[in-house]
């Protein structure tokens, strides 16, 4: 008999032979990236591969995930939608604004978005948040996975416009895209400092953990606005 354990709202650990991180499928019968579907007591779950999703890795690294069933999320760097699909599962009664800059990735994202009404795709540069100001409402969570050298600045600019005062920022920092030659640990320290001090608004870091072994040279960060 498979066992379902709730790790956080909308996020489950299913034990069926081995342990699977998973979310409840909002679009029953459909898979997004070749993940497994598990049917348990009338509900269908999609397994979540932490090696392909930084948010998935953060869950397993025991981050407190601030997503609720009715959360509004601004998702920067949606790519082709692997992680977005799980966020969409979790905030089934909320809304996800999925910003992606590459038309090529957006092409893949569209086929996912078309089937999920809580997703709103935006093809735009996350570094220029004013471009989508006429579309995006204040959100509970800003999630960022953009792999850009100025990603701390991008996070701050978006949080300034869109993050509610009691909201959370979740981001993944990729050391290699900030400085290819520097030591990742040093890059992480610098980036944390930037989040805490360099831009408006400033952040208070709640959790910062390396995403090893799921992602190499990546740091997961959970932060909220500094009062």
């Amino acid at each position, binding site marked *: 008999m498979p066992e379902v354990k709730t790790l956080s709202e909308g996020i489950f650990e299913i034990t069926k032979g081995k342990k699977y991180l998973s979310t409840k499928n909002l679009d029953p019968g459909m898979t997004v990236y070749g993940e497994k579907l598990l049917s348990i007591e009338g509900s269908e779950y999609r397994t979540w591969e932490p090696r392909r999703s930084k948010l998935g890795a953060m869950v397993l690294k025991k981050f407190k995930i601030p997503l609720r069933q009715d959360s509004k999320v601004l998702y920067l760097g949606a790519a082709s939608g692997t992680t977005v699909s799980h966020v969409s599962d979790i905030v089934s009664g909320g809304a996800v604004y999925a910003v992606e800059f590459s038309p090529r990735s957006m092409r893949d994202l*569209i086929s996912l978005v078309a089937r999920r*009404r809580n997703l709103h795709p935006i093809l*735009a540069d996350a570094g220029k948040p004013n471009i989508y100001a006429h579309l995006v409402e204040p959100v509970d969570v800003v999630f960022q996975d953009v792999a850009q050298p100025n990603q701390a600045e991008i996070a701050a600019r978006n949080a300034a416009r869109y993050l509610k005062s009691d909201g959370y920022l979740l981001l993944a920092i990729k050391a290699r895209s900030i400085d290819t030659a520097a030591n990742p640990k040093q890059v992480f320290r610098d980036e944390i400092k930037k989040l805490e001090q360099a831009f408006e608004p400033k952040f208070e870091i709640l959790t910062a953990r390396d995403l090893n072994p799921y992602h190499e040279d990546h740091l997961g960060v959970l932060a909220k606005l500094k009062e």
Partner: protein
Amino acid sequence: MRLESWFGTLDLGEDGKVLASDQFSKNVRELALRSLSLREAGKGVPPAGFDLRSAALACGFVRSSEEYDSLLHEVTLDAAKLQISGALTPDQRIILAVEALDDVNETANVLSERLSEWYGGYFPESGLSGETLGRFVAKYGSRKNVAPEDPLYARATDSMGAELEAFDEELLKGFATSVCSLYDRRKQIEAYIESSMENIAPNLSLLAGPMLGARLISIAGSLEKLAAFPSSTVQVIGANKALFKHLRSRAPSPKHGIIFSHPLINTSPWWQRGKIARAVAAKLSLAARMDLYSGKKVPSLAEKLDAKVQQIRLQNPEAPRKKPDRGLKPKGKKKRRQ
């Protein structure tokens, strides 16, 4: 204060309440087009933290939160689709063609090697390879069919190769035809790239040749990105491994990336190559910028490059003596000093 949202123009009072609204019709395509035009407008941007959803409910544009999400979903989806259909610009098409060309080349090489191995059992003395072998097998099949006027006739009649039976011959001929069609496709793609490059990047084409120019655009990601690169980057595009080795450790910096295939560089003696690569890269950068921003062909650019290269050649006629301690040795010495 007046602001623009995806569902209409709103007038706000001092307290942030909606005083008046000019709402758009609920036609998805119209809303999507408006949303796209608002992106660039830059005026009437809502203040930070403005709650669009509440405003839409307050002014009666939508009746429920569900309707808001549902309509916004359709509008953003339609807008994204419209953007994607316009995203395949001429330089993106060239990039796709360059990538296809690389795949065709690789496949053609693998298959022609296979053919050479396979047909070698039946006519090892042919001395042919690659495209010529493909054409030969597709034309004759068994070496018994080689026409007397063909220069290979003598070798074909006197070959130690095995007898090629009809059943096998059919197979090999078909295989050779496939190989030949790959070579045909290669020519077709090259012609496509050449003519497209002449249209969208005439200066880059003139200076670098259409194939090298197309490769530079392909690696940069777009003509716009290539034009934005400093010329020192253009100089080492394609030498990623060497460049990062240089940045991480004490390895020497790369002198040239894919621009090495430029005839001015690869026909020069080694001691001039770095200097010429720098001059070529500088002019290629200029050419890319001219192509992006003016699109006009400027033939004087090529003359200036030639003059510069001549100057470099005159100033560096002799090979400098190679320093004996190049390579790994200085690394050890420097370390000891630290």
